[in-house]
């Protein structure tokens, strides 16, 4: 790679972007203006929230005007009942309804009548039952009478007469739909809590007890971090990482679209491609440009939000600016974050035909990235080994942990997060480079799209095997259909119900779309679905491989469960399923769980979808993509990870054998073993001689003995090694791709392809 060319391209692209007013606005102007404006708006809203008085209608309030513990003071609630005294009282104005205004027969009618006025006329209503004051007085009298007498045996709260006079409850009527009404309810509840406490005190005093008996002691707390620091750190450690990611992505996206799709649109890309600069140099030059803008955007936004936040929060009690070390951690994090999003945006933008099309890709990128950035911010989510393995989430959690000052915890997972982030960056950069090397991507021209034309194209230009888009579409369709099916069908109660649901899911949702698409969209469904006999030795080899790998798959399952612990509700469902399996007829169980899925899923995922993915021109990548789709269609995350890894082995078998049969045998045996392991009980291990040498009972169910792991591992490795000896039947695109690479490497002309 010629670094001078990279530097030249970088300098040109940066200068080009700096001359673009839209980019300048996004990168420099927006961060400087946005946060101060948001801050001003926030202050406005706070003023609205705190300075607007709420009006409360008090029904039955007349009876309390002369109560011993006053609730009202003239036309207001008593100032003593508010933490902030007269200011609070002024913000909660009241209107006492005249006696008899809401004198309906039933409580429900009265509530409905008052409800019609909330929140239209009043923000909330406080309703005292008609005999409330009278009952309260009776209670006080009972307390006073009981004073000095010993309490009845077994009684803790009743008066000596044996029964407390019951006091009807006052009711607050409000609506959560209306913000003001909700706020009025909050204020009113606080006032009534204090008033209730005051009533309690009055009662105690009436009974000759000290008023302090209501609250004999107070609890104190000591915050080691200092109240101000801990509050600030907590908030900033949640805000800053997400902002960093969001702006690194936004800052990368617009320059990427302009540098790739924009260049295509303006016709300058072709000129650059015909210059001596290599494509890799062009990609790196553009990538570095995008990274520069991504980093600057993120940095400016963080600085702006930090300064604005500090200024705003300084005026608030117990709050401060971001912790000083945040600058260091965020500066270190911005490089990998910008690299990751720059490469992703570059690859997406290279695919787009025009800037307009490029901008459409922002939303899917946001939709995929934002949950990964925001979910770690949920309460209770911490940096663990499992979380640190998730690309964006791990980085956000690491940043959060660093900002909180938990350096030892952060250091523990730093290598994992870094490794995952760098791997994601590397994959994204490779994807971007590949996009630039594909002439079908670089020279995608705007075509008139019409459904009729497209359908005719699908039927007319059928290839023996499906295209990548057709393969992926089939996967997406299965995913959507299974989601809809699972959501619409009620969880089956017995095994028969489970069997029925499984059969419908496998046959209608997984198999049918794949078969229909193979027949309609390809000229050779047989070749697509790999319906041919493999070398006969491969079938027993696949069977032995399934048995040999089973201990590892079980171990892997346990590791996944350890890294990503299963939710209690899901655990209940899984246990419930195991119970159903244990009581089911073995033949039917094997049919539903092993035979049907082995056939249907192999036809769909290793048949149609893998064949489609092989049009990528790289069979390893095709296996990975089909395995991911296979994993995703499974019910929950832990199961998906296992299924995805299993999909890799099944895809490898399909590619190496050129047939679906070894995969079906492997899949069938793997599922059968899983089902049968549920049937192995400690009693069975004791009853069958020799079984104890293979498995041992544990609290989580039967587990393999270590010699089985050892033997299985050696056998599995030997078999996988044996499969590598067989040359795989390559797809047309794989042959073409290899020929290109071959000619590029060895100097043979592509003319002979």
């Amino acid at each position, binding site marked *: 790679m010629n670094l001078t060319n990279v530097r030249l391209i970088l300098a040109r692209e940066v200068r080009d972007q700096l001359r673009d007013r839209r980019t300048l606005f996004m990168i420099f102007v927006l961060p400087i203006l946005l946060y101060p404006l948001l801050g001003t708006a926030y202050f406005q809203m706070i003023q609205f929230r705190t300075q607007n008085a709420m009006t409360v209608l008090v029904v039955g309030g007349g009876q309390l005007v002369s109560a011993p513990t006053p609730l009202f003071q003239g036309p207001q609630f008593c100032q003593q009942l508010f933490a902030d005294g007269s200011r609070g009282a002024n913000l909660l104005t009241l209107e006492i309804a005249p006696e008899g205004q809401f004198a309906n027969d039933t409580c429900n009618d009265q509530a409905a009548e008052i409800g019609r006025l909330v929140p239209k006329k009043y923000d909330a209503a406080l309703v005292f039952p008609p005999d409330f004051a009278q009952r309260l007085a009776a209670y006080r009298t009972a307390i006073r009478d009981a004073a000095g007498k010993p309490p009845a045996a077994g009684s803790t709260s009743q008066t000596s007469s044996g029964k407390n006079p019951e006091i009807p409850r006052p009711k607050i009527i409000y609506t959560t739909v209306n913000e003001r009404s909700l706020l009025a309810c909050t204020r009113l509840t606080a006032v009534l809590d204090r008033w209730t406490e005051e009533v309690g005190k009055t009662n105690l005093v009436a009974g000759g007890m000290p008023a302090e008996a209501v609250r004999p002691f107070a609890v104190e707390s000591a915050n080691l971090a200092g109240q101000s620091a801990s509050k600030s750190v907590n908030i900033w450690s949640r805000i800053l990482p997400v902002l960093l990611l969001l702006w690194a992505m936004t800052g990368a996206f617009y320059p990427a679209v302009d540098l790739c799709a924009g260049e295509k649109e303006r016709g300058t890309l072709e000129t650059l491609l*015909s210059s001596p600069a290599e494509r890799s140099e062009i990609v790196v030059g553009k990538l570095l440009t995008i990274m520069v803008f991504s980093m600057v955007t993120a940095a400016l936004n963080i600085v702006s939000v930090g300064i604005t936040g500090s200024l705003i929060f300084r005026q608030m009690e117990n709050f401060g600016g971001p912790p000083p070390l945040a600058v260091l951690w965020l500066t270190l994090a911005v490089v990998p974050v910008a690299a990751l999003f720059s490469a992703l945006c570059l690859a997406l933008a290279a695919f787009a035909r025009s800037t307009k099309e490029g901008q459409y890709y922002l939303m899917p990128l946001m939709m995929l990235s934002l949950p990964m950035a925001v979910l770690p911010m949920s309460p209770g989510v911490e940096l663990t080994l499992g979380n640190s393995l998730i690309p964006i989430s791990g980085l956000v959690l690491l940043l959060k942990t660093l900002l909180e000052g938990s350096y030892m915890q952060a250091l523990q997972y730093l290598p994992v997060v870094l490794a995952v982030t760098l791997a994601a960056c590397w994959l994204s950069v490779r994807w971007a480079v590949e996009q630039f090397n594909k*002439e079908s991507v670089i020279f995608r021209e705007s*075509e008139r799209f019409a459904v009729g034309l497209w359908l005719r194209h699908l039927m007319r230009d059928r290839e023996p095997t499906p295209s990548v888009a057709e393969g992926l579409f089939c996967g997406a369709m299965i995913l959507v259909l299974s989601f809809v099916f699972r959501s619409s069908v009620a969880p089956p109660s017995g095994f028969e119900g489970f069997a029925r649901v499984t059969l419908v899911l496998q046959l209608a949702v997984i198999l049918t779309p794949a078969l229909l698409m193979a027949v309609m969209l390809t000229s050779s469904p047989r070749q697509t679905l790999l319906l041919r006999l493999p070398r006969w030795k491969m079938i027993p080899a696949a069977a032995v491989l399934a048995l040999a790998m089973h201990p590892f798959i079980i171990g892997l399952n346990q590791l996944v469960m350890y890294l990503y612990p299963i939710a209690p509700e899901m655990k209940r469902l899984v246990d419930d399923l195991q119970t159903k399996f244990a009581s089911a007829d073995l033949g039917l169980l094997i049919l539903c769980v092993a035979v049907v899925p082995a056939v249907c899923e192999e036809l769909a995922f290793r048949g149609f979808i893998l064949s489609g993915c092989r049009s990528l021109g790289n069979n390893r990548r095709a296996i990975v993509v089909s395995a991911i789709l296979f994993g995703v269609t499974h019910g929950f995350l832990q199961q998906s990870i296992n299924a995805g890894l299993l999909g890799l082995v099944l895809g490898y078998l399909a590619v190496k054998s050129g047939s679906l049969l070894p995969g079906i045998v492997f899949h069938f045996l793997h599922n059968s073993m899983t089902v049968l392991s549920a049937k192995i009980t400690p009693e069975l291990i004791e009853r069958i001689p020799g079984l104890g040498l293979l498995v041992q009972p544990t609290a989580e169910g039967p587990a393999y003995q270590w010699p089985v792991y050892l033997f299985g591992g050696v056998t599995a490795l030997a078999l996988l090694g044996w499969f590598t000896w067989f040359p795989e039947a390559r797809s047309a695109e794989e042959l073409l791709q290899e020929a290109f690479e071959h000619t590029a490497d060895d100097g043979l*002309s592509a003319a002979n392809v």
Partner: protein
Amino acid sequence: MIEVQGLTKHYTDLRRGRFVALDGLSFRALSGQIYGLLGPNGAGKTTALRILSTVLRPTLGTARVNGCDVVRQPSQVRRQIGFISANTGIYDRMTAWEMVEYFGRLHGLPKAELAERMELLFERLKMNDIRDLLGAKMSTGMRQKVSIARAIVHDPPVLIFDEATAGLDVLVARALLSRVAELRESGKCIIFSTHIMREAEKLCDRVAIMHRGQILAEGTLDELRREHSEQDLEELFFQLISRHEQDHVPAVQQETL
């Protein structure tokens, strides 16, 4: 010199499905000559020229530019060519000077030598008045001038003009043609694609008439006139295309169905 042998390129698109953009194209263009590629829109001229500039890869066949193979030695090929297309490929947010300098630097010219050469070039092409003008502010004629300056700044032995006069007014087109003729005089090998017969008649030493990715006739203008007993090039072009259309359409349709 450019040597093309059996050049073939297949594409797939919604409208035509799988189709052959180039079908065994073979020709040879020599230094000091202008080789014209004549053909209607969609004949495959741009595809052929994109392959020659290594932007596209051929499905089959070979192409050599000054002895360098476009597939095996793309970098060497790109150092020896200057590519000028109809849309000029001018950056909107760069001045004429910056643009020519950028491509000169990408071709590895040392700064001092490049500056000297650019001064001469701007003088010769009368571009000094647009030296600091941004691409977005330039007229089509100005853009085409800058495009030529960009393509010849490194003094390449081979120049590729892809419908370079498209969209130009008569005066600018005439000036461009005279520049191309001047470049021939300096010993360059020039490929000039066009669908305007008068340009080919005025400029080209040899022409190839293309249709549906094939060369229907090839030679000097005199050879073509003699061979097809037709003096008017436009008429000759029309006859060849019509005949080819009649002969090959059923076969092409059969292929795509």
